[in-house]
């Protein structure tokens, strides 16, 4: 559930738009920043806040790839495998990530440390191949570099 401070933040952001519904994506982002994912209770809370049925909120959450309706591992590793990254060896990067994290793409490791996802183009084609860990981009990678980056994470 959203805390008081974040509820106020959403109210403030709502003033940017002529209709309350437009604050939905910003509100979902705030919720996800707070908890790492968006629970059914939080979706209902946001729906009540903005005057939207739960079904609408759920519909939006499930439409957008970046909203998580389930908790993720401590680190979310996203590996781009689209054309420009594929041309520069993203296959090997993905295999290395899966190996180091003990989690296949689309899964979370048994210890809950890693969630690995194969993703669409991240807009880093000039630094291909790349991965993102949370908001941070890591570009111009080799399998060795990826391993080094991942092993350094506490």
């Amino acid at each position: 559930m959203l805390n008081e401070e974040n509820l106020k933040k959403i109210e403030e952001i709502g003033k940017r738009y002529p209709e309350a519904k437009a604050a939905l994506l910003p509100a979902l982002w705030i919720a996800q920043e707070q908890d790492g994912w968006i629970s059914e209770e939080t979706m209902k809370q946001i729906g009540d806040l903005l005057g939207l049925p739960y079904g609408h909120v759920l519909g939006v959450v499930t439409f957008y790839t970046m909203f998580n309706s389930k908790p993720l591992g401590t680190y979310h590793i996203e590996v781009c495998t689209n054309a420009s990254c594929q041309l520069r060896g993203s296959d090997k990067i993905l295999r290395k990530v899966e190996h180091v994290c003990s989690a296949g793409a689309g899964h979370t490791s048994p210890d809950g440390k890693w969630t690995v996802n194969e993703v669409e183009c991240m807009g880093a084609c000039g630094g291909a191949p790349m991965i993102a860990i949370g908001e941070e981009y890591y570009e111009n990678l080799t399998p060795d570099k990826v391993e080094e980056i991942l092993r350094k994470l506490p």
Partner: protein
Amino acid sequence: MTQTEHYILPDIPEYHRIDVYESNGGYAAFRKALGMKPDEVTDEVKKSNLRGRGGACFPTGLKWTFMPKTSDKPKYLAVNGDESEPGTFKDRQIFEQNPHQLIEGILIGCYAMGITVAYVYIRGEYGKWIKMLQAAVDAAYEKGYIGKNILGSGFSTEIYLHKGAGAYICGEESSLMNSIEGERGYPRIKPPFPAQRGLWGCPTTINNVETMTNVPLIITKGWEWYSKIGNVKHPGPILVGISGHVNKPGVYEVPTGVPLLELIHTYAGGIPGDKKLKAVIPGGSSTMILRADQLDGVCMDADSLKAAGSSVGTAGLIVMDEETDLIRILSRLAKFYHHESCGQCTPCREGTGWLHKVLERFEHHQAKTEDIDLLLDIANNIEGNTICALGDAAAWPVQSMVRRFRGEFEKCLAPASH
């Protein structure tokens, strides 16, 4: 004409800071515009021949004239920074290196069209770059360039950033508006066009980030100066993102009209290992693939690429050497369009997945001869039969690949089919 100076990504250290931007003449264009009549500003942009940098190359000034001059409803500007087309990574450079020129362009556009609120829609993956642009917007608010009664002119406008959440389709202008409104990113049927009924049913213009970053140049230096940069029918500086098999991938600012082969061999340092070029996708994944032997004299501008059988798109040039498995690339792109189809229109929702399945058969050498024509048949039945251009964007790579590289498909047939 060779452009030596950079206008969109200038080589000035710390240019993203407002004080550095101002001391290099920043915000002078906006001050100048405030002294002109709004129509004069639009006219200047129209005469410059600036064409949109988001993919469709639509004349920017003309688009601005579609907005009603008087309106009892508010008018909106939506700036498209969704940048999700595979092979495209140029707007990110603007957020990072030159955010104030973008803001200045937005302000000039708002003044010209009588707009009081602008939303900049940026893909959610660019969290870091959203923060960079927000810092620049905050600095511009502090200096009084954005807000109420700007610089004592009586003109007021607000700029807000709106963060996307991982949906390629939201780069399509009508789904972008739905996304701002708090909806799923479903494209809308046109007409009505955004200038009549856009955000919340009000007149709206949607322009790309790079397009708006060009606007201050036109106001400062005049339309005549601008219209002489690069190709006369599609002038100006353009950011070309070069990726794939080149020695120096990255974003290069060049005048329009530079030959593709020069971009590959001179700017991007050629192909690693001195391998031969096999093919390019010239303007992001939705543009038609070209064979290396089709590239003589082909330049990065709208007419030249159209004549060659492709398009400029977002100028995201993907380079592929002689050893590239084109079927795998195409199959990966088909998977992308299937994933990103919003699901509203049956031909796209079903067709993109079907294309991917058939292409997987080629990838695994399990295809039959008739599968080649099946690919074309599916693609032809998607093209033109959907609300938005995502369907076309999914069909074109397949159609062009079959036409231009049929041999690649024939090599991937199941043994019994040979």
